[in-house]
């Protein structure tokens, strides 16, 4: 991937978005994320003032407040990891398909992971919701989508999306068949299928961490190529980018990130679609800024949604998957209304 291509393609976003302003913005967003994290530890059934939060983190003790904080640490960390993973996966997917409204689940990744988890539960596998089950399922789904999409000729974005529709539909039918035939599986599945940061096994964090880290690193490394890809396959090739390889690696990164995220917290909608979309209005289409912003903005949105879920139906809790759907839906509608006419 030559630097010419990167620079040429980054011409998309030059102009009033100077590097220093973008860097400042990123820093600012990181600060916002920090605040959200503190809130995530502070807010809930028992409100803990931020001062005590700091104390509890730095000098962990055994007071009631400390245990409450300790119980919220896993969900906050999960929110950080999963939010970053989903947002970046969405950014890649939107770059790969050249569609600003693409969702990382388009290639069947989430359904594949879910199908694998359901199958494992059905056969009574103890560690059914582990990343070691979700990941092969997600990969298998993406591979099938790629095979169908590459039937005869190159795997263009349109073909991959359509193939993704087919595979997702078949897998969804499979999941329905299993869950409706086996009540025990259904009972477990119906709670898992709504993404939630709560009630998850903290060991999952260590399991998914390597996958998410590798996925994020791969994604950031692909930024330049994704910029070139945005100009169309032929132009990208003319600029020296490897279109096929970029698509493959991009799909790999998306799969790793989505599978890990789904395995950890269940399927969460709209973060992958909405966050890159919103971030793009600030950073422009340059992936070298878009993706890092996603790493910060994704968790901010997800944790904010989680906090909201704790507040809205207090003393109960609304799962974050439900909240993101009800935030993302209206965001999408607003985006549609602002679309230029003739669309």
């Amino acid at each position, binding site marked *: 991937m030559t630097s010419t291509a990167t620079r040429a393609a980054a011409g998309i976003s030059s102009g009033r978005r100077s590097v220093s302003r973008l860097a400042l913005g990123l820093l600012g967003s990181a600060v916002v994320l920090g605040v959200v994290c503190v809130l995530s530890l502070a807010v809930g059934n028992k409100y803990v003032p931020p001062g005590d939060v700091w104390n509890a983190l730095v000098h962990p003790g055994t007071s009631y407040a400390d245990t409450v904080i300790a119980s919220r640490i896993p969900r906050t960390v999960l929110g950080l990891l999963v939010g970053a993973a989903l947002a970046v996966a969405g950014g890649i997917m939107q770059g790969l398909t050249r569609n600003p409204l693409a969702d990382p689940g388009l290639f069947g990744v989430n359904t594949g992971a879910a199908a694998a988890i359901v199958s494992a539960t059905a056969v009574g596998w103890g560690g059914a919701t582990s990343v070691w089950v979700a990941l092969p399922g997600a990969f298998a789904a993406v591979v099938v989508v790629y095979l169908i999409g590459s039937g005869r000729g190159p795997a263009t974005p349109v073909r991959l999306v359509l193939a993704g529709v087919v595979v997702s*539909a078949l897998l969804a*039918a499979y999941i*329905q068949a299993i869950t409706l035939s086996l009540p025990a599986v259904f009972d477990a599945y119906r709670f898992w299928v709504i993404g939630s940061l709560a009630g998850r096994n903290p060991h999952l964090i260590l399991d998914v961490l390597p996958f998410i880290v590798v996925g994020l690193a791969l994604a950031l490394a692909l930024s330049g190529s994704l910029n070139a890809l945005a100009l169309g396959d032929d132009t990208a090739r003319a600029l020296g980018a490897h279109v096929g390889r970029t698509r493959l690696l991009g799909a790999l990164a998306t799969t790793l990130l989505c599978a890990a995220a789904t395995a950890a917290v269940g399927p969460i909608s709209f973060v992958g679609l909405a966050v890159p979309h919103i971030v793009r209005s600030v950073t422009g289409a340059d992936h070298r800024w878009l993706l890092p912003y996603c790493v910060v903005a994704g968790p901010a949105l997800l944790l904010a949604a989680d906090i909201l879920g704790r507040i809205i139906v207090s003393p109960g809790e609304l799962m974050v998957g439900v909240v993101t759907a*009800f935030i993302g839906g209206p965001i999408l509608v607003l985006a549609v209304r602002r679309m230029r006419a003739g669309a």
Partner: protein
Amino acid sequence: MSVTALRAGDWLSLPVRPRSVIIACALAVGIIVVAVLSLTLGRLGIALGDLAPAILGQSTGPDAIVFEVLRGPRLTVGIAAGAAFGASGALFQTVTRNPLGSPDVIGLTSGAAAGAAAFGLLWTGILPLPAGALVGALAAMALVWLGTGRGFSSPARMLLVGIGVSAMALAFVQYVITRVGLQQATVLASFLSGSLASRTWGDAVIIWVSVAVLLPCALLTSRRLQLMEMGDEQADALGARSGATRGWVVLIAIGLATAGVSVAGPVAFIALTAPQIARRLTRSAGPNLVLSALMGAWLLALADLLTQQSPFAVQLPVGVLTAVIGGIYLGYLLVAQWKKGTV
């Protein structure tokens, strides 16, 4: 080599396509065959000789129950609902000029699901589900109408807003499924896959009347739809008033799909695949409304027959089967188109 026409003096002349007529007759025969099989097969099946009396209400004993309660209503509902879905899909695909157009993608079926879930939450039992589906579908369409900012005039916007409405509806449904007991959750999930179980003659009346009213309305627009296939400008130039026609067609399509969804739940894929298969068989352009309806009726009745006679211990909802059939067919369709190079 000229166009065959049905003529009556000077005041009537209708073009007739021999191939389409033959296929329509074949489908009608196919529906009858499937109907007979549905009533006669299996442990509880009515013997062929006793079929006529049972249908005419002259028999007593087990045959009467099998026809009156168990299989009769579900068969008649299935045929009409399938026709409604098939016609609705044909209308959507023609008016959006997109082979993937269907009432599912604009949020209608998920809205129905959410409505059913809401009613199921408020009132226990099976009865409220179809009513809820009706209310939910209408509510979803109202949201889409408001959300696009310009009503139903732009299918592309309807699609995007539909995605948002779908996501919210589905999140709501999933949430409800976690809030109710396992028993009720299973019933709800079953309905939400599209099920013909426990249908009543009342349901049959609803759907047959809806189809009898709406299908002729749709047929009145079919010539203008044919012209709209060539683009709005060309259609307007020929005098077809594409804007007004589009509005009517969308309303009729929504009406048909809503009727179908309220009696059968969100059955997957019939609206998507029936028109495509019909078109492939007749090898002709145009909305092919009657054939899509017949194909939809046959597919749904067949799928229900297979569901009832399947060797699995638990009867799966018919929607699972239609999703599998539909998914496979869609995959084949895409691969075939790619080999031809038309995607």
